[in-house]
């Protein structure tokens, strides 16, 4: 067990390898658990010193809209956790412009700092990854 990684064992094969990881979020929160469990993977990935980025596309943009209050559905409101990502050194958050617009949203409606990019730029970002994990 390593203190540095918070209990995650790293073996030699993993050490020193830095890959580009993208977590692609395309699902809205609460209706299904994918958004929450995706966030759990993202937080773990921070311990591996990889080049991690998050992309929000389609209904995934609803994960980071401001003003989520979950008391009435008795589920945990995990939207504040996206703001913790910076402290985990995960600072590359991309939102597809077309997905935002299709939902009548703007950058001001989002609860974290993101880079809004158009489809073409998002497509290029995706294509240059080593590993894309989509939820």
């Amino acid at each position: 067990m390593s203190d540095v990684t918070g209990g995650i064992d790293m073996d030699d094969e993993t050490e020193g390898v830095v890959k580009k990881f993208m977590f692609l979020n395309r699902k809205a929160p609460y209706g299904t658990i994918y958004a929450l469990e995706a966030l759990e993977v993202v937080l773990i990935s921070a311990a591996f010193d990889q080049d991690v980025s998050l992309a929000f596309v389609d209904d995934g943009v609803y994960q980071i809209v401001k003003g989520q209050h979950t008391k009435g559905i008795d589920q945990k409101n995990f939207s504040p956790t996206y703001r913790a990502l910076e402290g985990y050194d995960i600072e590359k958050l991309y939102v597809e412009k077309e997905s935002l617009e299709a939902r009548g949203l703007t950058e001001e409606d989002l609860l974290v700092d993101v880079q809004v990019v158009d489809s073409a730029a998002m497509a290029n970002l995706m294509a240059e990854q080593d590993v894309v994990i989509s939820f």
Partner: protein
Amino acid sequence: MKFGILVNEGPYNHQATDSAYQFAKAAIEKGHQVPRVFFYHDGVYNSTRLTEPPQDDRHIVNRWSKLAEEHKVDLVVCVAAGLRRGIKDEVLAPGFRISGLGQLVEAGIQYDRLVTFGD
């Protein structure tokens, strides 16, 4: 080549786990390696030995166990997702083990490809 596989759905409800299995089998038949299959979300339900499908249906759980035994495939069930859904050591079928999400990230780092199956 080494393929990591991520399975995000439970057995029978969704074809994802069938597709993942067929993919793994085909990859091994072609001489590739599948060192690890990681089960996440409802995918953790693939691991329970309490599964008893009718005799005329495929036995998804046993199929994974057999693949693990014959080809040294590491079947890893996410501990956090498992705990949420009542999947613990005492219900695991042969070949499965419970571990952390780090094993998924590690698969992405170490293997040549990571292929996701889900809904």
